[in-house]
C-alpha cells in the first residue's frame, strides 16, 4: 500500500485529500505520477514536486511499500 497526500490545487482537481493505492507495478515517483495522471486528469500534478515521508525527492526516487507520498504544488506561503 502507498499512502498519497493531496493539497491545494490537486486536492481540488481530484476532489479528495488522500488516497491509498496498491504498490504493485509502481516502483518510482515517475511511475506513480504517470499512473495517477491516467486515472485522474490533473494539470497541477504535472507541476508538482514530490515528497516521500516528508522529504523532497526526484522523479527517479523509488517508492517502498508503506511510504507516504505527497504531491507538492508550487508553494505560496509567506
Amino acid at each position, binding site marked *: 500500500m502507498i499512502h498519497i*497526500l493531496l493539497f491545494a490545487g490537486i486536492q481540488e482537481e481530484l476532489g479528495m485529500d488522500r488516497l491509498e493505492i496498491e504498490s504493485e507495478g509502481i516502483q518510482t515517483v515517475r511511475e506513480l505520477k504517470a499512473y495517477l495522471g491516467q486515472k485522474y486528469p490533473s494539470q497541477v500534478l*504535472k*507541476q508538482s514536486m514530490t515528497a516521500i515521508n*516528508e522529504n523532497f525527492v526526484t522523479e527517479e526516487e523509488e517508492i517502498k511499500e508503506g511510504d507516504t507520498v505527497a504531491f*507538492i504544488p508550487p508553494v505560496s*506561503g*509567506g
Partner: protein
Amino acid sequence: MNEVRLFEIVDQPIIIEDLIHKVASREVGAITTFIGTVREFTGGKKTLFLEYQAYQTMAEKMLSKIGEEIKEKWPDAMVAITHRIGKLDIMDIAVVIAVSSPHRKTAYEANEYAIERIKEIVPIWKKEHWEDGTEWVGNQLETVRYPAGRPIEEGELK
C-alpha cells in the same frame, strides 16, 4: 521550563511578542522581525480574504531545516518562525519571522534569507478569494499563477 517550539504552523492569530521572546537573550543586541500581512490589492485586483493550507508536519520540518541552514551560515543567529493557516482577512498576519544576533547585519540578512526560503521549500499554499472567483496561487518564486483549469504545458515550470 516549557519546551520552546521555534518553528510552528498554527491556526490561531500569531502573537508577535511571543516570537520575540523566543529569540531574545542577554547576548543579543539586535532582533529583527518580518511580519507578512494580508494585502487588499495585488496586481490591481481586490482580495476579499485568503485561505492558507499546509502539509503541517512537513511544513514544520522544512521551517526547522531553514533554521539549520541559517545556523550554518550565521552561527550566532537565533531564529523562530510561525506561519498561520486557515482563513485570513485583510491585515491579518500570515507569518512572523524573528531573528536575533549580537550584530544587526546578521539579524537583517538571516531574516531575509528565511522568508525567501519559505517561499521556496515550505509546503504551504494560499488561495485567493476575490469577488469573481478563487485561485490557488503560486509557483516556487511567486512569479506566476496557475488558474485551476487552465491548461499548463508540461515542462512550463520545470
